[in-house]
């Protein structure tokens, strides 16, 4: 069953039409990697899916429910999704532990003791149990992003949306974050991730979707899209990426 489905998403900022009708279906336990040049609209698409932007046309379906219907309470929908951005994810005035327990307690109304116990368990799994009391600016960028992922997971989302979670990191920190994403994927989380890490997309994603000119130009298994791209634009893009040494 499709956990997340995007149908004909259109989004413009003023005269700048960024998305011109994007369709994307994400099956349960699947990982979709969203690739495309800078400014192609990957972040915009994820923000539309997360209801952080109002779409100009089209539908977002979460578990079959049209959540772009204005009668739907968007706050309640967002609770069922986890989102991690490129940077500035953690709240700097809250400790790591409070960052992770905030949504479970304030949004989902779970008892604090229970939320704290679970948060400590999650932090222990990423090797950051001893950082629970620290503030985010005392953590490395990689540690911060791992905490952000764990925080998104703490509300047990139906789908995890990751927007280039490693692109603001020093190269040496990328690996630890990708390892966590890999682990989360292996446990069956449904994931849509915008990424420039083609090697990682090839290994972890079930589907790679190439966004160009406001539409999904092609999508399919990584071997196909990254190995034998059908469109000239895709080949150009991949050639540029290879030049940049990221494949």
């Amino acid at each position, binding site marked *: 069953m499709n956990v997340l489905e995007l149908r004909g998403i259109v989004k413009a900022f003023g005269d700048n039409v960024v998305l011109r009708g994007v369709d994307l279906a994400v099956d349960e336990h699947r990982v979709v990697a969203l690739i495309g040049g800078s400014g192609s609209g990957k972040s915009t698409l994820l923000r539309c899916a997360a209801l952080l932007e109002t779409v100009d046309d089209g539908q977002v379906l979460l578990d079959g429910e049209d959540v772009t219907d204005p009668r739907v309470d968007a*706050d309640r929908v967002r609770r069922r*999704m986890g989102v991690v951005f490129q940077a500035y994810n953690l709240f700097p005035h809250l400790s790591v532990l409070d960052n992770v327990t905030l949504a479970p307690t304030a949004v989902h109304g779970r008892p604090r003791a229970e939320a704290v116990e679970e948060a400590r368990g999650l932090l222990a799994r990423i090797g950051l149990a001893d950082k629970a009391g620290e503030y985010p600016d005392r953590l490395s960028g990689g540690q911060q992003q791992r905490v952000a992922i764990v925080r998104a997971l703490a509300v047990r989302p139906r789908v995890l949306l990751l927007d280039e979670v490693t692109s603001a990191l020093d190269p040496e920190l990328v690996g630890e974050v990708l390892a966590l994403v890999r682990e989360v994927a292996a446990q069956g989380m449904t994931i849509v991730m915008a990424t420039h890490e083609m090697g990682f997309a090839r290994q972890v994603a079930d589907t790679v979707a190439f966004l160009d000119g406001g539409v999904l130009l092609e999508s399919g298994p990584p071997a196909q899209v990254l190995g034998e791209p059908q469109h000239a634009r895709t080949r150009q893009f991949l050639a540029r990426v290879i030049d940049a040494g990221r494949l």
Partner: protein
Amino acid sequence: MALRRRRRARPVLSTVVTGGALPPPSELELSRRAWRRSRARRSTLVALASTLLFAVVAYLAVTRSPGWPRVQTTFFSASVALESLPEIARGLLVNLQVLVVGGLLVLVVGLGIAALRTLRGPALAPLRFLATAYVDLFRGMPLIIVLYLVGFGFPALGLQGVPTSPFVLGTAAIVLVYSAYVAEVFRAGIESVHPSQRAAARSLGLTHRQTMRIVVLPQALRTVTPALLNDFVALQKDVGLISVLGAVDAVRSAQIQVGQSFNFTPYVVAGLLFVLLAVPSARLADAVTARARRRQQSGSLL
């Protein structure tokens, strides 16, 4: 929900040397430190000497002036000062009350206006417009005029239940004006919080209100505290203006005594009391500002 407060202690340098003590300073570093110390001593001496010289010159100029004996008795008479002090001090209590009540109200109203001004969406445009108009109006109008309009205009309406006490009306006028200033301070703080913080909060399912209360405002407050304290220092002296409505505060009781004794010393006494009141908050504002700056540029030289 018990969110833990941010701890204040922070390392002075952004790059912390972990483990092991600092090695003993080299000869070079020791000589640099000695040189800096001697320079610092010299500039302190120069500053001290020039200040002293200026003070002496000013003192001589004033006390040698032909009018000084008269000025001394009419403005700086010790006996009049002592005599007027109790009344003026009692009046200052009124100012303090206005300060406390008004200060708290200003925080609440200012925050509310700021929240209205940062609302997004076309449906809320009228509210946003009203809030903007409010700020424009009361930031532009001199406080003394607002005092007159509120203090004399409201009672003139003769409405049932409208308070006529100069204390209440004076406080209201001050709150109207200062809320406009403080709203702008708050708004700057709210807008200084990175937009991703809002997106992160909303994506966790927090409502708009929760996002404001738990994520945006705590961060905004920290950046605006120095500015708020500066406005508080200004408020401390402006509460003396309620005297124009006839409230018997420090300024008004000084005025009464000036009228009785034909001696201006009570004004000086009242003025000094206001200064005494302002000094601690001014120092606090300095300290908070300095700390905020340190936090922003820990380690860097400029």
